[in-house]
């Protein structure tokens, strides 16, 4: 079979690109070494949070940000495309609603109690918006490791939304009615889908949350039934309830993965996972087939278009060997933004801007890979997500925005080229 499009990578960028193409009537296959970034992210779509000053209105600030960073992935997209990508994504999250837009960032607490700017957020998190200040109770469970409500609340209380708009937070730790001593976030989420369990949690908290404006929980409030679980807690406690993302595995990330994958399957797309993509068969400017590692032999998938959504260094999409040579790992594409030999790759300060941080594949406005002269290397390949050069997502708080918008735009570009 010749697929219309083969996508490499099953993170947010890969799944979004695949789903959009499948919806557009293309026969799509997603090939991935394993599950991607979704399970590690908090579930919010952060488009632009710092430039380095705090961004309150991404839509207004994106044009000047792009002017200042002409090699940034956002410089390859229009603000309208980023907006469309967010709108499209919201429309796909049918059982797990999202709220927000490019006009203004919400400020949501992280598990460390730091306010983080996000453009599009799960509705289950929205009541944690700190922009208006307020009084919050943060709930933790003794059996849930890695979520410290007192630490979160203390840090949160140091934040002042604006002069005269303080944040006051306190914590409550509850023993959940689970026999085990150490329970994962996912297991908690499954317990929350049991009505009896919810009742017990509500009963234990009723007298603890008085005098507050909203109650924060670790983001374990159900997997497929998050909407119902949150509503019931809200009704039971008589207060708005919000989730705070936990350390991985991230339940909100799983909800996103499940929704995207289910929609893709419904739209006729195929997902194959398990072995690495080894390379590609290419003739001149075109990739003909993706070569993958199957049991006992390789397996090739022929396609007319390819989307490379393999991520950056963290997920092996970009690799550096012991000699310092850097390349893209599937097609061997050149990597832009690598400091020349002899120059420093990293700064001494952990939080500082690192010369190496923006390394990735350079792309044109159709997200096709280009060489140092700007010439297109493969006309039927698009790059999406963290493999693209030019961003420092952890400093900009732009990671999900880039992956989602470039995944969406890569698909659009392919659909347009076919039209």
């Amino acid at each position: 079979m010749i697929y219309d499009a083969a996508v490499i990578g099953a993170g947010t960028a890969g799944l979004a690109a695949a789903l959009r193409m499948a919806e557009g009537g293309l026969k799509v296959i997603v090939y991935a070494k394993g599950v991607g970034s979704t399970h590690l992210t908090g579930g919010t779509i952060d488009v632009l949070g710092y430039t380095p000053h705090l961004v309150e209105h991404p839509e207004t600030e994106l044009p000047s940000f792009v002017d200042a960073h002409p090699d940034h992935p956002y410089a390859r997209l229009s603000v309208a495309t980023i907006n469309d990508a967010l709108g499209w994504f919201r429309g796909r999250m049918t059982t797990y609603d999202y709220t927000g837009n490019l006009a203004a960032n919400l400020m949501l607490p992280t598990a460390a109690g730091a306010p983080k700017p996000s453009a599009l957020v799960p509705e289950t998190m929205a009541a944690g918006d700190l922009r208006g200040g307020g009084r919050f109770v943060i709930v933790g469970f003794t059996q849930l490791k890695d979520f410290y409500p007192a630490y979160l609340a203390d840090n949160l209380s140091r934040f002042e939304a604006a002069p005269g708009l303080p944040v006051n937070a306190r914590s409550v730790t509850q023993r959940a009615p689970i026999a085990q001593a150490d329970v994962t976030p996912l297991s908690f989420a499954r317990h929350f889908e049991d009505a009896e369990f919810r009742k017990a949690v509500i009963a234990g908290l009723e007298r603890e949350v008085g005098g507050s404006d909203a109650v924060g929980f670790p983001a374990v409030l159900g997997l497929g039934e998050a909407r119902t679980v949150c509503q019931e807690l809200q009704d039971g406690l008589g207060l708005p309830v919000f989730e705070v993302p936990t350390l991985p595995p991230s339940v909100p990330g799983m909800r996103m993965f499940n929704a995207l994958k289910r929609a893709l399957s419904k739209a006729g797309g195929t997902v194959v996972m398990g072995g690495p993509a080894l390379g590609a068969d290419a003739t001149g400017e075109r990739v003909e087939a993706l070569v993958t590692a199957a049991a006992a032999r390789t397996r090739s998938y022929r396609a007319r278009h390819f989307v490379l959504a393999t991520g950056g260094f963290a997920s092996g999409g970009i690799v550096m060997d012991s000699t310092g040579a850097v390349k893209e790992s599937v097609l061997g594409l050149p990597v832009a933004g690598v400091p020349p030999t002899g120059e420093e790759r990293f700064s001494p300060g952990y939080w500082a801007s690192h010369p190496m941080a923006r390394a990735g594949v350079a792309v044109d406005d159709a997200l096709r890979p280009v060489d140092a002269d700007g010439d297109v290397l493969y006309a039927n390949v698009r790059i999406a997500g963290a493999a693209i050069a030019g961003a420092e997502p952890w400093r900009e708080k732009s990671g999900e925005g880039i992956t989602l918008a470039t995944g969406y735009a890569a698909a659009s570009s392919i659909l347009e080229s076919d039209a």
Partner: protein
Amino acid sequence: MDLIDRLADEGAHESVRASLDHCVKCTICESFCPFSAATPLFPGPKFVGPQAERFRDPTGSSPDISLDYCSGCGICTQVCPQGVKIAEINARARGRLWAERGVPLRNKLIARPSLSGRLATPFAGPVNWALGNPYVRNLVERIGGVHRHAPLPRFAGRTFRAWARKHRSPVAPKTIVYFHGCSTNYFEPSLGAMAVAVLEHNGYRVIIPRQDCCGLPLQSNGSFDAARTYVRRLAASLAPYARRGHDIVATSTSCSLMLKREALEILDVDDPDLAIVSARTYDICEYLVLLHERGELATDLEPLEATVPYHAPCQQRGHGIGKPAMELFALIPGLNAVDLDIDCCGIAGTYGLKKEKYDISMAVGDRLFKEVRTAGSEVAACDSETCRWQITHGSGVPAVHPIELLYRSYNLSG
């Protein structure tokens, strides 16, 4: 060269064990494990795998019995974004666990389908009656540890080999070898006949060499030495054909995975017979799709007006070949095949037969059973025999091998 590649050159064992150093503790495997989701008795693939492996002294004992609640479905390895061979690490550790403690008699018995097949076939009538009788099953559960409701297959009473001995495959331009496995021989001989007919229809003379069990059930029940003996013997009987350049196709997807990968990666069987057999062995749907890609598959397929829910079994996904059955179904006019896209049916070979694991197995399969029932079809399709029996048991809908649908669409019943 990557450390993992280097170690791969030094033997499968080292590469499997060394892969644990790629574990970044993201717990994605934990989130996908269908068995830890169904029982607190299994803490999950990361905990008993990359985590516990660091504490397993090659010379010391392996204390953790919770490992036995891993079904070996292999989903953890498939979803791991770092390439850690979690299921393989766990299978090896389970082998050691049972080597130390002694494999229970029950595990030894249910892991030898060819032995039970040989013994029971002449008495299929009474044996099937007995295994369908609640009193007998109650007794079998108490004495033998096989759950009274577990989906045991019915003996066909006639073997596929008996059919094959009488069958003359017509002279054809191409030759292929059929590895039928135990279940086709003793439980589903008609599947073997259908596979042969489909291959012959595609211009192959089909050779059916003498063959015995691949050893997979023994491996998953912890009898590694016995499993090695079986898989070596099977490889030796298939190797002469592979050396002559013949490809080998199999309808039993877990058994072909044993030949392709597991015997090397889990059992450390590193011999030349296995290597050549491994390189020549294909899942039958995989093979037919490759034929189709070369434009060599017969496409005189007649319409089958039906909706068929399809379940790709865990072991099938372990081949890393996508879902070739779905690609074949797409060629059949009128057939609406629905990929259920559910991780596991719960049976995992012999796991769900065991009295202490039956309920876990049924809980794992619950969503699949519901979806199969909801589809409202006359049949479901699935590549693996034990999964088919489990689906039929859990949903009440008979499950067939994808080849059966192709056979019907080719209209080969004569």
